[in-house]
């Protein structure tokens, strides 16, 4: 499933990131957001969600949440 359907507060392991934007992919990688790493949806908004990766919080939009498979 995608991050969009993830349960708030539950830690998931990223399976894959589906994007043809290689730059974005490597950017996410440098944040520690890549397959095999844990990710948690801290809270969900109707336009996206707040995620916790490593020890930082990010707000991402729906499009990006859909691209992250957990």
């Amino acid at each position, binding site marked *: 499933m995608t991050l969009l359907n993830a349960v708030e*507060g539950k*830690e998931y392991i990223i399976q894959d990131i589906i*994007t043809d*934007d*290689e*730059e*974005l992919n*490597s*950017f*996410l*990688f*440098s*944040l*520690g957001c*890549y397959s*095999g*790493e*844990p990710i*948690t949806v*801290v*809270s969900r*908004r*109707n*336009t*996206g969600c*707040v995620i*916790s*990766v*490593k*020890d*930082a*919080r*990010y*707000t*991402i*939009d729906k*499009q*990006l949440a859909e*691209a992250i498979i957990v």
Partner: protein
Amino acid sequence: MRIALAGNPNSGKTTMFNALTGRNEKIGNWAGVTVERKEHPIKKAFCGSNENLVAVDLPGAYSMSPFTSEESITSSYVKNEHPDAIINIVDATNLSRSLFFTTQLLELGIPVVIALNKADINEKKQTVIDVQALSAALNCPVVETISIDNSHDDLAKLVSTAISLCGKTQKAPYSQGEIDLSDKKVVEAADRKRFAFVNKIVADVETRKILTKDKNYQDKIDAILTNKWLGIPIFAVVMLLVFKISQEWLGAWIAEGYEFENGTVIPGLVSLIDSFGQWVAGLLEGAGASAIVSALLVDGIIGGVGAVVGFLPLVMVMYFLIALLEDCGYMARVAVVLDPIFKKVGLSGKSVIPFVIGIGCAVPGIMACRTIRNERERKAAAMLTPFMPCGAKIPVISLFAGAFFDNAGWVSFVMYFTGIVLIFLGALLINKITGLKIRKSFFIIEMPEYKVPSLWNAFKSMCDRGWAYIVKAATIILLCNTAVQIMQTFDWSFQEAASADTSILATIAGPFAYLLVPVVGVLSWELAAAAVTGFIAKENVVGTLAVCFVGLENLIDTEELALMEGAGAEVAGIMAITKAAALAYLMFNLFSPPCFAAIGSMNAEMKDKKWLLGGIGLQLGTGFTVGYLVYTIGTLISDASALNIGGAIGGAIAIAVFAAIVIVLISRANAKLKQEYALSGKR
């Protein structure tokens, strides 16, 4: 000897740079405040016996492989310019992410010392890092620092450690080895290994009681500030407060003085300038100076510059408040709130940061666009930032609100509101012209931890910007005012002009006046001259008007931001334009191209002549169109018979030409898009 400061965004590099050098570079609590490299000698107190120590502040980066343009500044600097040592600032609250970059820096062969920053936040969160174990694991000295608080000796220790390392070699704890950098898969595999190495170190040295993934009180604040329904109203209230406090309450009290209930009056800055002008006039009269010299000095220089300096309190209070907003961590939340709306017009939510900074001054606002990753979104934001009325435009707005609208508060409100509307319309237009493709755009922004904003930093930032404002008033604006005063006193044979209409200024500004007829309804070289000097600095509009209209300087209490009691009608009479024309002229000045300094920074951000010309064209077209519409419609409603028919027709033709250009550009973009879709359909 050069020491480079490198680390993740928002880890506190510039704060440390300021502490080390005594500089006052822009800081803020979001990722990507610093977009350029800055160098400055380190304070003697930190240098010990060493001389010529220079600190180099670099934009934040997550890794050596650049993602945005400012990240590439960092990686190319440390790779190619060979600093003598690197201070790697590591955000202690996010070791697991920061050390990825650290291990890359350690491989460069340049001595590295780690500043484990934000140690105070860790203490609060009961996170413990075994500094010695970390140092041993990385084979690199580690100094704990709190860069927002320079009462400790940690900075001196940091610098002396960096000096002691110079010339020595450190063995990198992790080495990537020779790999094929062009092969994406190989690089990713190597990076995964690096992260695994980092994860192991973090597991060994860090003990956390509070896990980041768990909800905390900060998330509760976020839930309110970025709430679906409340987010935008809260932002509106915050901005309204910024304006109220700076323009009507605190700022206005300092400018105009404050009267307590018991009748005690504290004089404001403007009355002081006023008395100064009168004092000088008295001196000149006593010394028997000629009327020309007296007029030049008192009306031209003190009057014109004083008009601008009188607004200093308003502008400084505004800078102070914006600095507080930038420091507390709210800006990233505003970007989140506005992203869904901005996305609809093809802008990134991050462009709200330039727009808010642009309220103070467009130049740093435009520079703040650099963190927007998508090139088209970045250029569009740089082009649109000047529509936000900046601090220099406040005097212009106040003058017209005072002269024509009885100081009505709505004038100011309408100007800012129009600015926002124009940003949205402009963004839509840019979309159409550049042919925005239906594409997936991703938005990701780090949520920095909230912190209590530092009053001292905001005060320093305010003084810095305030000083720049004074310098500008004392140089550019003084020069312009003097030039204007001289040019309108003399004619081309350098005799005192018989009337101002035969002066040098009148003949130069005359041709421009024709272009303004559709906006103001009359042929007025004075208004044209003011608009033209406005391109040098927008405050000039006020100064030039005060100088040009004979007698005006006696009526506008230039320093009092408004008019003397009952003078409003008289000033309106002297300018000889209607209310509709005044509003139109004001808007033309606000929404036409910004001052040269802002155009210069637009050029620097866009790096593309076509975009720059397009931007200036858009601003010119917008300013003219808005002015024309306001004047024409306003006049038709209030007194249709007063409409200058010739001007109205001329203006309509000009706008038709402008519209035609836009339509041609849009249809060209559409044709191109169709072609591209057709091609992709074939595949």
